[in-house]
């Protein structure tokens, strides 16, 4: 597989993990994702947390530490959202935030809370309630740009994706019709997901003929704006062995942040994700990801993003992921199922909660409790991933049963 020529020049992989404890996920919970939830952000968090604790067989009193992740405060419209969302009741609590990559940073943070030996039982939560922003959550993104050089041009968040998508299409000669197949696949997969907002059968033609938002992005290339919360319970090995016969282990974690200079970066390939992926794979002892990963949950806020992320995660050669989608490789009954639960495109995109949803979908696959979403092949190892900020951040988790 082709490697990015410069990858070892920057950063990387000085992280050697030794003498850390094993960490398992033993419970997961989610609210249904919806365009507009009647529940408050706090009520969403409670619902997901209670479900996760119930599956783990623990009460909140048993929890040592709490990790919470949420994207910009401006979405919910409440500042200091971490503190607002969850009454930790005098337990240590950490809020993590790394833009769209936050949702997978939550279990990464939960991981090192436990792996380090500081906590035995961690409740890790992610939440977003995007429907409260008026007139549209899109306006909230005005303040993520460089205020002097970028904001005056009038960008909205869709522009980031359109710019990446078009460069990707240009660099690898990938037609829009092939990219649309990802949207078709994921929305069909979501039809079997009880938590999904937008599952269903659509065609490539539906995507191509949907409203042009920012060319080359049409409305059905994009995941829906959502409200929702998700939570997992992460514990040390001895706790895991006591509470469950089917723990799912965190085999590797990786995360990176590049600089904000997206204006001077090749937008067809996410090098920072490749580096984060290699960090997680190395920790998990994975040398050939495309052979050793059984199921993938790449971040798919837009259809082309799933393709770029599969490539940076070394699960498809550069520019070739769309071809593999066409061949059915990433279908639920394919060789390397991708987003078998429907992904953000089908389940919904409450930013941080959506990232954790990807990890929970993977957890269900490894535990064998994915129901109708369960992939055909036996699964032992899987990868979940998120991405964000100004095209610069990536977070990766490898799980194993």
């Amino acid at each position, binding site marked *: 597989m082709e490697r990015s020529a410069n990858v070892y020049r920057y950063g990387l992989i000085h992280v050697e993990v030794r003498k850390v404890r094993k960490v398992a996920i033993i419970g997961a919970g989610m609210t249904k994702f919806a365009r507009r939830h009647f529940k408050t952000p706090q009520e969403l968090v409670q619902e997901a947390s209670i479900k996760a604790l119930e599956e783990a067989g623990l009460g909140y009193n048993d929890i040592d530490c709490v990790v919470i992740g949420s994207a910009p405060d401006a979405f919910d419209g409440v500042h200091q959202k971490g503190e607002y969302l969850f009454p930790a009741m005098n337990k240590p609590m950490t809020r993590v935030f790394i833009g769209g990559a936050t949702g997978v940073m939550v279990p990464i943070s939960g991981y090192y809370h436990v792996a380090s030996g500081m906590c035995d039982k961690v409740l890790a939560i992610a939440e977003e309630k995007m429907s409260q922003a008026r007139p549209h959550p899109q306006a909230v993104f005005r303040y993520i740009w460089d205020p002097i050089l970028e904001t005056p*041009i009038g960008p909205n968040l869709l522009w980031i994706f359109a*710019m990446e998508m078009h*460069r990707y299409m240009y660099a690898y000669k990938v037609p829009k019709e092939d990219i649309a197949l990802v949207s078709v696949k994921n929305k069909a997969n979501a039809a079997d997901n009880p938590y999904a907002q937008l599952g269903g059968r659509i065609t490539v033609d539906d995507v191509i003929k949907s409203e042009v*938002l920012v060319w080359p992005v049409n409305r059905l290339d994009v995941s829906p704006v959502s409200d929702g919360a998700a939570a997992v319970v992460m514990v040390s090995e001895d706790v895991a062995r006591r509470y469950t016969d089917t723990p799912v282990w965190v085999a590797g974690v990786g995360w990176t942040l590049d600089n904000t*200079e997206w204006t001077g970066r090749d937008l067809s*390939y996410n090098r920072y994700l490749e580096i984060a992926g290699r960090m997680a794979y190395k920790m998990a002892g994975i040398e050939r990801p495309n052979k050793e990963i059984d199921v993938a949950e790449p971040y798919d806020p837009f259809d082309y993003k799933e393709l770029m992320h599969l490539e940076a995660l070394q699960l498809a050669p550069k520019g070739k992921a769309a071809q593999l989608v066409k061949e059915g490789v990433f279908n639920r009954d394919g060789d390397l199922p991708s987003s078998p639960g429907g992904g953000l495109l089908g389940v919904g995109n409450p930013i941080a909660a959506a990232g954790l949803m990807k990890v929970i979908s993977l957890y269900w696959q490894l535990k064998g409790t994915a129901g109708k979403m369960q992939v055909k092949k036996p699964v032992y190892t899987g990868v979940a991933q998120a991405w964000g900020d100004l095209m610069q951040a990536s977070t990766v988790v490898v799980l194993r049963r």
Partner: protein
Amino acid sequence: MIRYVPKAKYSYSAGQAQSVFLNGLKEKKILGTVCNKCKKVYVPPKMYCEECFKPTDGWVELKDEGIVHTAIASFVSWTRDRLEEPIISGTIKLYGSERDYVFPGMFHRICTTYDKVRDMSIIGAKVKAVWNEKRVGSIEDIQCFKEV
């Protein structure tokens, strides 16, 4: 529903590097900083090289020309209102760097047609800055980048 319009306003500092850059725009010049150790040219300029973690070594003037790296046509405004005529923008890879993954680059409007964005012929095209007559030291001193 509570209706509330935030009144928060900000007066941002341009800082050491961007101030020089903005004053350069006033003189129709695109100025970048350079790191002598790794040879990276920074546009927009930075006072320190992020790769070498040391101060940059000085200023260079770049041509106001480059290659369109990517281009888009937006039919929605930043408030997500529908636009009749699309805003066309993208990133421009400026001349002056031999590296391929990172390069001196600018984000701006591109003066071209929607058709050329759709058929991708504008990507890879050579463009040049169109300067405003009246310049005040702002990114808006450039009207757009236009095909040459």
